[in-house]
């Protein structure tokens, strides 16, 4: 009679439960019965009960009450009970449970048991869940088994030793001599179970034997003699040769032999070849061998099996930097894989293709990449767009090509590009001054075709606002000009303004562009005036504010309008890690003209910056709180906590110096005394703190404290201002302290 009948009966009952609730009911009953059985004396059914519990555990139900039963069963003299007990230990106990310590003694006893199958149970369990303590305790036993026992036990002891060494590395030395002697034995099983202290020539011998001479049928897999063993040996060779020139030399021939002789028609052979390639790439191999390895990967790319194609790509990706030329030779195949039906392969192909782009192949590669972009799966679009932009920026053969490429991406995947694309493209356009006419024509055409891609629409609006006069002139060198009337252009912008598809930021661009045209067109200025006044009552606060300001520009400041709206100078690309953190901040900086003369009427400058700010601000991205007072020289709130508010106002004094005023206020209900501010600056900057106005900060904001700080950067190094401020004060009898870092200063006057 099969011993598992009772277990199988329970499984059948559980499986016949029709609902989750019913199943839970059955299991609760069964667990109660099992618990009761555990408490009873030995009745011959203990192993079955534990097995039932293990099944229930696998379904996801709690089974911790079985832990002690495992300990008991392991100590039983009956093999069937030991077997299930050890299985339970491996499933229910881990090194964190106290119960696991209790089985150490049983394991120790079983390691010396007369039956090798009992020894094997103990070894297996120790290798599975042995804690560091258990390993230390039992290591000498394992060492003994490594030396003195039969091959069956030796191989298990060796693997157990591997686990021990991983857990407690110092014990590795204990096992080294035994490991050495294991190698000289011919048994396949033991060869597989090596640890890292090995002896190379023997390995090479064994490997040679496997590859060249006959094979034993029991180890054969599809014509490859023991691929598991071959891979193991290759793995070891890899470890040995890693930083070792001599070892790498010695295994050169062997690796070449394996690479050429292994039949790759079945997966087993490919597995061995793959491991060979990994080994060659990891050790100090000679270039001929590396080329051989890359060629194997290239062959894999053409394999019908998509798994092989996939791992070939992942491997190529790892070596594309170090062995760039070798991988370039397979560029054609890699690019073809962009069309592979498998999504993972496509992704790898994309990454690899981007890595292979160079100045030489940029035009042909970009064709392929743009083609890919138009039909690629949506989850890859953002990555592809980003990669294309980077490649275009690095290798663009001409500015026109660059602009065209970016426009192409915006047309096909405008929704997937990052926010910086818009200011980056605008900056690029301004620098390509001889292409302004071409660019604005191209963008106008794109705009009247489709206004759904926000990034494209924003750039188009900006361009039309800026270069609208070139558009209206109707002549262009590089492109067939369009006959456009002023009304046509204003129609286009108004469509954007009114469309449901336009985001608030886009509408801002359109409104500003419309305003700018007021100085570039001649006949329709009134139309612009009326558009602007309509939006003065727009619900969107941002648009309303702009419209009101533009209205003011028409009415009160009309004499300045031409100067304010004139053509912008070429924008300098700001340093990429200006630590504003948000792209919005970076964009703001890009728009500012690099040099501001202090002599010019400050009033004229401020509105100008407000107008242009709007073009590139990323609404909602800027985390710094902005408040404008005194005609727009901005104050920044740098700290707001526990009722203390610290505001920073900066004004530039000279080319290298900066004056900052800190204003503190207290909105809590308790006065603050001994209020002090300390400041620190980077090494390149000199600091001078003037005396504060006081050190008493009354409650409820009735008075403020100010302190002026002078910063000087005589070397003009980087001109990056950064300030650390430590604040300390006493409130309600307790001392408070806080620090903050300010690394971006508000307002154009500060840069």
């Amino acid at each position, binding site marked *: 009679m099969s*011993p*598992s009948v009772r277990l199988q009966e329970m*499984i059948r009952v559980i*499986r016949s439960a029709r609902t989750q609730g019913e199943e839970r009911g059955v299991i609760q009953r069964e667990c109660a019965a099992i618990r009761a059985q555990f408490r009873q004396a030995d009745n*011959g059914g203990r192993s079955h009960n534990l*097995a039932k519990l*293990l*099944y229930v555990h*696998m*379904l*996801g139900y709690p089974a911790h009450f079985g832990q002690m039963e495992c300990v008991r069963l392991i100590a039983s*003299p009956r*093999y*069937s009970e030991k*077997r299930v007990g050890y*299985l339970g230990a491996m*499933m229910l106990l*881990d*090194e964190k449970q106290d119960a696991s310590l209790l089985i150490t003694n049983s394991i120790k006893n079983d390691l010396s048991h007369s039956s090798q*199958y009992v020894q*094997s149970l103990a*070894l*297996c369990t120790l*290798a*599975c*869940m042995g*804690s560091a303590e258990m390993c230390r305790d039992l290591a000498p036993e394992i060492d003994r088994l490594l030396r003195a026992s039969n091959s*069956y036990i030796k*191989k*298990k002891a060796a*693997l*157990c030793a591997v*686990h021990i060494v991983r857990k407690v590395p110092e014990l590795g030395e204990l096992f080294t001599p035994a490991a050495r002697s294991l190698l000289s034995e011919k048994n*396949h*099983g033991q060869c*597989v*179970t090596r640890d890292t202290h090995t002896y190379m020539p023997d390995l090479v011998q064994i490997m040679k034997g496997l590859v060249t001479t006959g094979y034993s049928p*029991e*180890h054969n*897999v599809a014509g490859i003699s023991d*691929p*598991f*063993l071959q891979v*193991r040996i290759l*793995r070891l060779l890899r470890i040995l040769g890693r930083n070792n020139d001599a070892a790498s030399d010695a295994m050169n021939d062997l690796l070449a032999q394996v690479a050429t002789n292994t039949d790759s028609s079945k*997966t*087993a052979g*490919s*597995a061995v070849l*793959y491991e060979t390639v*990994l080994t060659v790439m990891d050790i100090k191999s000679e270039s001929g061998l590396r080329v051989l390895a890359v060629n194997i990967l290239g062959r894999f790319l053409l394999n019908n099996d*998509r*798994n*092989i*194609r996939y*791992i070939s790509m992942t491997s190529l990706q790892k070596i594309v930097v170090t062995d760039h030329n070798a991988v370039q030779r397979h560029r054609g195949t890699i690019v073809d894989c962009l069309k592979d*039906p*498998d*999504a*993972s392969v496509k992704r790898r192909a994309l990454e690899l293709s981007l890595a292979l782009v160079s100045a030489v192949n940029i035009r042909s590669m970009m064709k392929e990449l743009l083609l890919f972009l138009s039909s690629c799966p949506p989850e890859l679009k953002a990555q592809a767009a980003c990669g294309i932009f980077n490649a275009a920026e690095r290798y663009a053969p001409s500015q026109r090509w660059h602009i065209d490429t970016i426009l192409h991406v915006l047309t096909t995947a405008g929704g997937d590009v990052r926010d910086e694309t818009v200011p980056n493209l605008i900056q690029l356009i301004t620098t390509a001054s001889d292409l302004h006419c071409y660019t604005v024509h191209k963008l106008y055409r794109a705009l009247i075709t489709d206004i759904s891609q926000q990034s494209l629409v924003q750039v188009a609006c900006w361009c039309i606002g800026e270069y609208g006069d070139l558009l209206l002139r109707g002549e262009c060198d590089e492109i067939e000009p369009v006959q456009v009337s002023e009304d046509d252009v204003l129609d286009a912008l108004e469509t954007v303004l009114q469309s449901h598809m336009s985001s608030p930021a886009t509408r801002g661009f359109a409104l500003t562009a419309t305003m700018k045209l007021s100085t570039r067109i001649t006949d329709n200025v009134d139309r612009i005036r009326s558009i602007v006044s309509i939006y003065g009552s727009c619900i969107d606060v941002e648009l309303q504010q702009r419209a009101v300001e533009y209205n003011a520009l028409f009415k009160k400041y009309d004499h300045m309008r031409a100067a304010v709206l004139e053509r912008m100078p070429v924008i300098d690309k700001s340093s990429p890690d200006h630590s504003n953190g948000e792209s919005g901040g970076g964009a703001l900086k890009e728009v500012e003209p690099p040099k501001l003369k202090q002599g010019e009427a400050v009033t004229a400058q401020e509105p100008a910056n407000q107008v242009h700010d709007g073009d590139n601000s990323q609404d909602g991205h800027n985390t710094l709180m902005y408040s404008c007072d005194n005609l727009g020289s901005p104050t920044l709130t740098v700290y707001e906590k526990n009722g203390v508010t610290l505001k920073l106002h900066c004004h530039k004094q000279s080319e290298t110096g900066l004056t900052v005023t800190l204003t503190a206020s207290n909105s809590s209900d308790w006065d603050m005394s001994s209020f002090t501010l300390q400041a620190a600056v980077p090494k390149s900057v000199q600091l001078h703190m003037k005396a504060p106005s006081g050190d008493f900060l009354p409650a409820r904001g009735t008075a403020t404290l100010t302190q002026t700080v002078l910063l000087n950067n005589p070397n003009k190094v980087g001109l990056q201002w950064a300030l650390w401020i430590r604040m300390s004060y006493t409130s309600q009898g307790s001392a408070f302290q806080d620090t903050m870092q300010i690394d971006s200063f508000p307002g154009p006057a500060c840069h």
Partner: protein
Amino acid sequence: GMRFLLLFSRQGRLRLQKWFTPTPEREKKKIIRDMTTMVLARKPRSCNFLHWRDLKIVYKRYASLYFCLALEDQDNELLALEILHRYVELLDKYFGNVCELDIIFNFEKAYFILDEFLMGGEIQETSKQIVNRSIEASDMLQETMEEYMSKPAF
């Protein structure tokens, strides 16, 4: 080395779990949830390799069971497919035309076979014959012992 091996049905029911490194219970449950969700979501003709955290996941479907093996970065994925296949062969030899029901109703046997083939996250024995012989001998030992213990002691 291998980190874990999971067998689960097409409905996501776990049939076997082998953990080659100590893992807390809560973490095991999370991993099982993640694996079943990820693997079951794969389209029919995708490749058999996935990336998850810092591990490579190799999975293969045999009839109604998914075999899922987690590897470390240095391990050979193609070989992992061979490992899974070898395990299926061993099960097939033992049960004769093995199907999911065999593994459900005799799950302890599936573990015993696995423990003769893999140990400590590495391959233990590459010979099919030796593994089969060991299992047969252990099974016989089980029955022999049971007969012995059930004999009345006079």
